[in-house]
């Protein structure tokens, strides 16, 4: 039943009839976020506290989200791109600038995320959750892998997977030869390609989150994986462990932004400020097993979560991490070609 008072007259009046039969006149905020990135209570609690409705939907990749918001007329108010996309989204004029006066809870941010390289004054984004890419492995492996280079060991043949993601996969090869994740030099990129092609015969497959079950089942002994996904596997199978490779590795921070097309900027700020509450953030962390950029939330977390070395690496490990940024078009094109060459090798 769409509307209890719908009668023939409203039906004849068509659109005006439909408008008058809208169930709910509360303002509506449109939030488009990664899947499994809030706690079940997060959205309903916001709706009841602020007397609003939230249209909430999820995506699985930055590209899926970008394909919609690129039109500038997507109907979303808030999206959560990865940090490396912020700069180009800003350059494309997709982002609204933030009013810090409406975001007092920014003070709760972890100091490491108060002036990030991708948006030093937080003019456009609020760091939300972060994770890194490393190696998850079965503790029966001796010696345990500690470097990317260990994933080139013939002993792992057929029991090893790498991510089906050009940035991360090629990135690991670049780190192995001592280069940056955001390398643009064609010669170095081709060297990384040779590394990838040399490793391919050892690989079982290129898999993303779906490797989780095979790690738990013991089919796969070592895998390149994101720390959050790895932690979910470790929770299910204590024989697994996670390590951030010695050569360096990437961190990714997903950041909430308000789109310039938004017509509910004030409400959107209220939502961002709500997400920055320590209690809300802690609740989300507990539900999703990810790492929050909210420093004040940490004290509300159980000690074993707060000190979990894969979710919250210590200062030494943290310093080895790199925050990849978007590479120029020409490099992106070369990287995609290299990726296709690796896949068809």
């Amino acid at each position, binding site marked *: 039943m769409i509307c209890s008072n719908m009668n023939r007259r409203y039906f004849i009046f068509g659109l005006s009839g439909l408008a008058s039969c809208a169930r709910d006149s509360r303002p509506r905020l449109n939030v488009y976020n990664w899947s499994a990135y809030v706690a079940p209570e997060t959205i309903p609690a916001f709706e009841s506290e602020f007397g609003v409705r939230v249209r909430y939907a999820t995506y699985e*990749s930055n*590209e*899926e989200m*970008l*394909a919609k918001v*690129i039109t500038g007329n997507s109907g979303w108010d808030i999206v959560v791109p990865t940090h490396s*996309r912020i700069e*180009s*989204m800003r*350059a*494309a004029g997709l982002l609204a600038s933030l009013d810090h006066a409406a975001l007092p809870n920014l003070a709760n941010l972890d100091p490491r995320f108060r002036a990030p390289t991708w948006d030093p004054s937080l003019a456009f984004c609020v760091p939300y959750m972060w994770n890194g890419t490393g190696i998850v492995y079965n503790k029966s492996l001796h010696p345990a892998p500690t470097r990317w280079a260990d994933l080139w060991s013939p002993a792992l043949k*057929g029991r090893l*997977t790498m991510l*089906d*993601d*050009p*940035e991360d996969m090629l990135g690991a090869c670049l780190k192995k030869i001592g280069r940056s994740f955001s390398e643009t030099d064609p010669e170095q990129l081709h060297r990384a390609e040779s590394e990838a092609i040399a490793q*391919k015969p050892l*690989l*079982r*497959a*290129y*898999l993303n989150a*779906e490797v989780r079950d*095979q790690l738990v*089942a*013991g*089919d796969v002994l070592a895998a390149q994986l994101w720390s959050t996904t790895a932690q979910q596997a470790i929770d299910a199978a204590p024989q697994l462990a996670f390590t951030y490779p010695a050569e360096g590795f990437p961190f990714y921070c997903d950041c909430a932004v308000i789109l310039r097309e938004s017509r509910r900027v004030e409400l959107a700020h209220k939502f961002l400020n709500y997400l920055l509450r320590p209690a809300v953030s802690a609740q989300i962390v507990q539900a999703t097993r990810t790492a929050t950029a909210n420093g004040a939330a940490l004290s509300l977390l159980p000690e074993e979560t707060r000190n979990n070395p894969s979710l919250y690496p210590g200062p030494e490990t943290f310093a080895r991490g790199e925050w990849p940024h978007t590479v120029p*078009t020409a490099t*992106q*094109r070369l990287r*995609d*070609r290299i*990726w*296709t*060459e690796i*896949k*068809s090798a």
Partner: protein
Amino acid sequence: MKLREWFLLPARAWMAVLFAAPFAIVLAYSLMTRGDIGGIAPPWTAESYARLIDPLYLTILWRSFVMAAVATALCLLFAFPAALFISRSTSHRNLYLQLVMLPFWTSFLVRTYAWLFLLRDTGLINTLLESLGLTHAPLPLLYNDGAVLLGLVYGYLPFMVLPIYATLERLDPALVEAAADLGARPMTTVFRVIVPLSKPGIVAGSILVFIPCLGAYLTPDLLGGGRTVMVGNLVQNQFTTARDWPFGSAISMALMLIVTLLLVLFLRKESESLV
């Protein structure tokens, strides 16, 4: 407007909105330049098509054709006897037809995932083989071309069975009897009488299987473990990680063009051979 025209209007509107318009958009995109975060930007250029003439992409295209052709041949091999059996059965014909179509009740994605659980090291097949003592180590059933072919044949088999069944059902049984009366053995009857007469169904089924197999991206991704790329994956990749919509559109257009040309040539040859 004549009455006939009015009745054709829904079909024409359907084709205009769901075929012609998207086709025009893809064509336009293929002639533009890549935007920084995806999407498209001016100026107009044919550069994406020029990039296609490259051994790397042509090899992928060729391999996709081979995979699709092998999958179609395997489908035909399995589908023909099944269709013949169904058309000859008397009491349970409808039940058998329902069974052929039964998989469509479940999403293709879910069914492909189910194969992952059957084929993996600790999956049903390997566990069974090992518990029977037939193997001592898991067979590598997943993440190779064989698994991709299996997935394609499994997914598109009904599209081969149904058209062949449709022609066999209309086959005049008197012709088969006549062959037998003239002394043909059953196998001879099948290959000299039934197969030639069911050619329209075989052709329709082969087209229905070959084209979706050629564009498949889900099956090579899930069952092939991303170790090989088919042209469908190449297109998908341009719209996702590579953020190169014009190139993705150009590959799609080229693929459509090649398939259409092949189809036209093939059907023309067919109609000549019938004359």
